[in-house]
C-alpha cells in the first residue's frame, strides 16, 4: 500500500555537471593551475525497483525493497559517487615554493545507489 511518487528520468540518481572555479572560493591567489575543474556531483533518487543503470549495490537493492514496504521507517538508498578520478594542482606554499600535488577522488565520474 506504499505510495510511490512517480520518478521521472530527470530526477533519478546520476552525475550532474558542476564546475568549481577556484576564484569563487577565493583561492586564486595561491593556486596556479588549474583555474577550476569539472567536479560534478551526484543527485537524484534511487527508486524501486532499482534498474541496472542505477548501479545499485546488493545492499541498496534490499534497502529499496524494504523502503517500498515501510517508507517511513526505512529511507531510500542514497545517490553517491561510485567512480571518482584524480586532479593535479599546482600552487605556491607559504614559502613561495612551487608545489605540484595529485589528489585522488576529486572528480565525480559516475554515481550509483
Amino acid at each position: 500500500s506504499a505510495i510511490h511518487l512517480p520518478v521521472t528520468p530527470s530526477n533519478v540518481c546520476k552525475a550532474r555537471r558542476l564546475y568549481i572555479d577556484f576564484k569563487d572560493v577565493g583561492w586564486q591567489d595561491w593556486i596556479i593551475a588549474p583555474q577550476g575543474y569539472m567536479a560534478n556531483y551526484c543527485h537524484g533518487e534511487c527508486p524501486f525497483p532499482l534498474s541496472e543503470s542505477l548501479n545499485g549495490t546488493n545492499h541498496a537493492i534490499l534497502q529499496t525493497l524494504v523502503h517500498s514496504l515501510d517508507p517511513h521507517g526505512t529511507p531510500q538508498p542514497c545517490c553517491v559517487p561510485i567512480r571518482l578520478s584524480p586532479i593535479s594542482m599546482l600552487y605556491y606554499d607559504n614559502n613561495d615554493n612551487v608545489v605540484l600535488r595529485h589528489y585522488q577522488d576529486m572528480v565525480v565520474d559516475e554515481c550509483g545507489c
Partner: protein
Amino acid sequence: EEMKSQERLFLSSLGLSGRPRPAGGHQPRRRVPSALWRMFRRSENMQAQESDPCTVSEYGVRGNIIRYVQDQGRLVSGWSSSCQVCLEKQLFFNMSVLQPVELLSLAQLEIKFHWKPFRSAELLQGPRALSVSLYKVIRATLRGANPQANRRLLLSQSVRLQPEPSSITMDLTSLAESWRKPGRNYGLVLELLPLSVDPEELLPFHPGNSLPLEPALTLPLIQASLVAVSLNPHQCRSRQRR
C-alpha cells in the same frame, strides 16, 4: 566564521594546515619550473584509468606531492673561507614545509649554471671551466673557527662554462630526511673555483654579496633548487586489485 572553519576542515583534508599565503604583493612571483609544468600537463592529459596519482613516473618513486623547494642560502665572499679566490655560496632548503605525516621518497638537488660572458675576450678564449665542490655542513661554525672543520665533502666535479645553461643533479634524499628534524638543518656550501685561469689574474672576493667588478672570469648565475617528492599516506590508498 562557519565558512572559515569549513574551509580549514577542507584544507586539512587536502593535506594543508591552512590557506597558503604566498609572498605576492610587489615581489615578482617565482616562475613555475618547466619540469613541473610538463608533469602537470601530462597528468591533465592522462586518462583517469591509466593514471596513478600516487606514483611520480618521472622520478620512478611513490609520491603525490612534488615540491621545488627554494634555496634560501646567501652568497658568501672569499674572506670567510680558506680559499681567497673561490666563490662560496650557502644553500639552505627549508624542509619544515613538509608535514610530519609525509614520507619523503626523493630529494634531488639541481644546480643550474647560466653563464653570460660580457667580454668578447672571454668568448674568444673558448669555454672555461669551474671546479665545483659541494659540502654538507654538519654543525654551526663559531666566529673565528675554521669553517672547513664543520663540513663534509659530498661532491667534487668540474663544469664547463658555455653560453648554454648547464646543470648538476645529486640525490640528497637521506640528507634531506635528516634536515626535517628541528635544529638539524645547517644546509650546504657550494664552492666554485675557476679552472685554467692563472691565479695571478684572480682577484679575491669582497665581503658581502657583491662580486668583484673586474673578475678574471665572469661568474655564472647559480640557481639551486631541491626537488622533493613525498607521499601523504592518508591521501594515497594502495591500488585496488582488478
